[in-house]
């Protein structure tokens, strides 16, 4: 039997949304190249004004026209604003020695747009800009070897606070996944540093316990996966460093990975049983 004879309804919304997203990315890439290659020919002021006007036009379109591609016009507007703010700061140094604060400005602008339009893609740009600001901003407190880890922890804490204050349920997942991953990256960076190895291991274990508890309470398996995988990496780093002997180290890695697979599998089975019981 031919397929067409039996399919009365063929949803292609996902494919069309992907096409719209691709269009946005092509435009943003093109604009990025224009700014990079032609700013001396066109003139920085003209470029800054043109990109700003294009971004405003995108937002205006999203405000006044109920279109199927409204979300993508908002995303394009946000990407153009990012490009424009970065370009303006690189040309005129409006923030002087505090140039890295333009990321904070972008985080605020994107967050405002994300909440106004209810757009998760733009919120992810805001979170990324915030993470960039925390990744660059320098203070005395961050002058130690654990610089990256502290900045990651503070960034994760800010994201969790934002998550608590957030009133748009659709955005919660993004905050939770971003905060969890950033916190674990910070903890692992401490673990990989020989001088803070054990502190990093302990912090990873604490975060893993938190992620595990949250995953079990909210019945979200991915947080259990985060706990399992990140703590496996931390334990492996500490133990392999302690063993030294390559044969024993490879044997240990084999056993620890199998144990992690078995533990995660058992957790998955438990989750599936609970889901079935709920159903």
């Amino acid at each position, binding site marked *: 039997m031919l397929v067409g004879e039996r399919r009365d309804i063929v949803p292609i919304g996902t494919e069309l949304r992907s*096409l719209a997203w691709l269009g946005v990315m092509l435009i943003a890439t093109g604009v990025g190249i224009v700014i990079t290659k032609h700013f001396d020919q066109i003139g920085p002021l003209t470029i800054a004004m043109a990109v700003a006007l294009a971004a405003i036009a995108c937002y205006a379109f999203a405000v006044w026209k109920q*279109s199927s*591609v409204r979300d993508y016009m908002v995303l394009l507007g946000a990407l153009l604003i990012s490009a424009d703010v970065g370009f303006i700061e690189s040309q005129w140094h409006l923030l002087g020695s505090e140039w890295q604060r333009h990321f904070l400005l972008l*985080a605020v602008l994107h967050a405002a747009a994300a909440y106004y339009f209810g757009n998760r893609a733009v919120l992810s740009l805001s*979170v990324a800009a915030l993470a960039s600001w*925390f990744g660059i901003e320098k203070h005395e407190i961050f002058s130690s070897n654990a610089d990256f880890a502290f900045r990651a922890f503070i960034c994760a804490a800010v994201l969790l606070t934002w998550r608590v204050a957030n009133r748009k349920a659709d955005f919660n997942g993004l905050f939770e996944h971003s905060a969890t991953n950033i916190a674990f990256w910070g903890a692992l960076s401490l673990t990989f540093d020989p001088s803070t190895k054990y502190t990093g291991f302990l912090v990873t274990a604490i975060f893993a316990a938190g992620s595990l508890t949250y995953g079990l309470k909210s019945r979200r398996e991915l947080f259990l996966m985060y706990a399992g995988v990140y703590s496996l990496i931390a334990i492996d780093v500490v133990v392999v460093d302690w063993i030294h002997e390559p044969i024993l180290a490879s044997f240990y890695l084999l056993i620890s990975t199998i144990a992690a697979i078995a533990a995660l599998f058992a957790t998955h089975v438990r989750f599936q049983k609970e889901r079935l019981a709920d159903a």
Partner: protein
Amino acid sequence: MSDFKKNAWPTPEEERAKTWRHMSLIVQIVFFVLTIIALSALYGFITLLSLPAGWIVAPASIVVAELLIRRSRFWRTGVESALWIGGLFAFIFSLPSSGKVEAILVFAAAAALAGWRVRNALFGSAAVTLVVAYVAAKGWHWLALLLAIGVALIALAGLAREWQRPSTEMLWQFLILVMPIAGYVAVALRLESWTTDMRIAAIFVGLAALFTIVGVHMRLRVPLMTAVLCLAIAIVEAHDLNPVSVESALIVIGAVTLASAAAIMRSLRGKETGFVLGVAKKSELQDVMSVAPTLMPGHAAEGSGAPQPVGGGGEFGGAGASGNF
């Protein structure tokens, strides 16, 4: 014992109903990666003991995979697929290297065998892609393109029919999507400098038209996606005919793509049969993917302007504005 033999594969009904032990895509990826790490550790351990690693890892991993499939009904967990493909590849890696291009065919055979056993469309497509790569590596670039197009057309014919197993349908879908790209890369590699060949552009325009007609007529999504892909390849191939700069072309093509998507969405609004918009599904995978921009380096205000007072980009994070300006 009879159960062991009977449980080699799930029945088509079981495969459709997903009654065997299976995982979501993201969990499958996690288990696949962890299993490959475990296999690598085993390979390293046996090598350090000066034993023939390939001869031990391959049978051991395949036996474990078969036990998991037949006894515990593992199917789409990521573990059994990793054990099959990892075991076979470990065996190939342990063989003495001759440096001949025929080695590609050995990897293709391994991917095909693993793909057949666990009915994995990705492995099956990888096997065919490796065969196309082999033909191209032999210097027969046009033959490689013809082979890829031939496979894509066979897959199109296959997809037009109803199949009992979703995995078979998935294989046809993967092949239709992958083969035009593999064929184009194979034929593009024949030239030292990248110049437009209108014959190739015309072939891909023709393919785009064919896939569109079949997709619309048969109400199939994947051929429509492939049609867009073929059109994109034709545009890329015709780059020498582009009257404007690359950046202008990107902006124009992006705007046309966005406008086309908007127009099609508008035309489908309110439709209840045939091609419809459908409801966007929210998955946790989207949230995980949303973390990706945070991994990109943030350099938005660095670069061609005057040196910045504080050097270096961020160690993590990006603002969607990365670039050297």
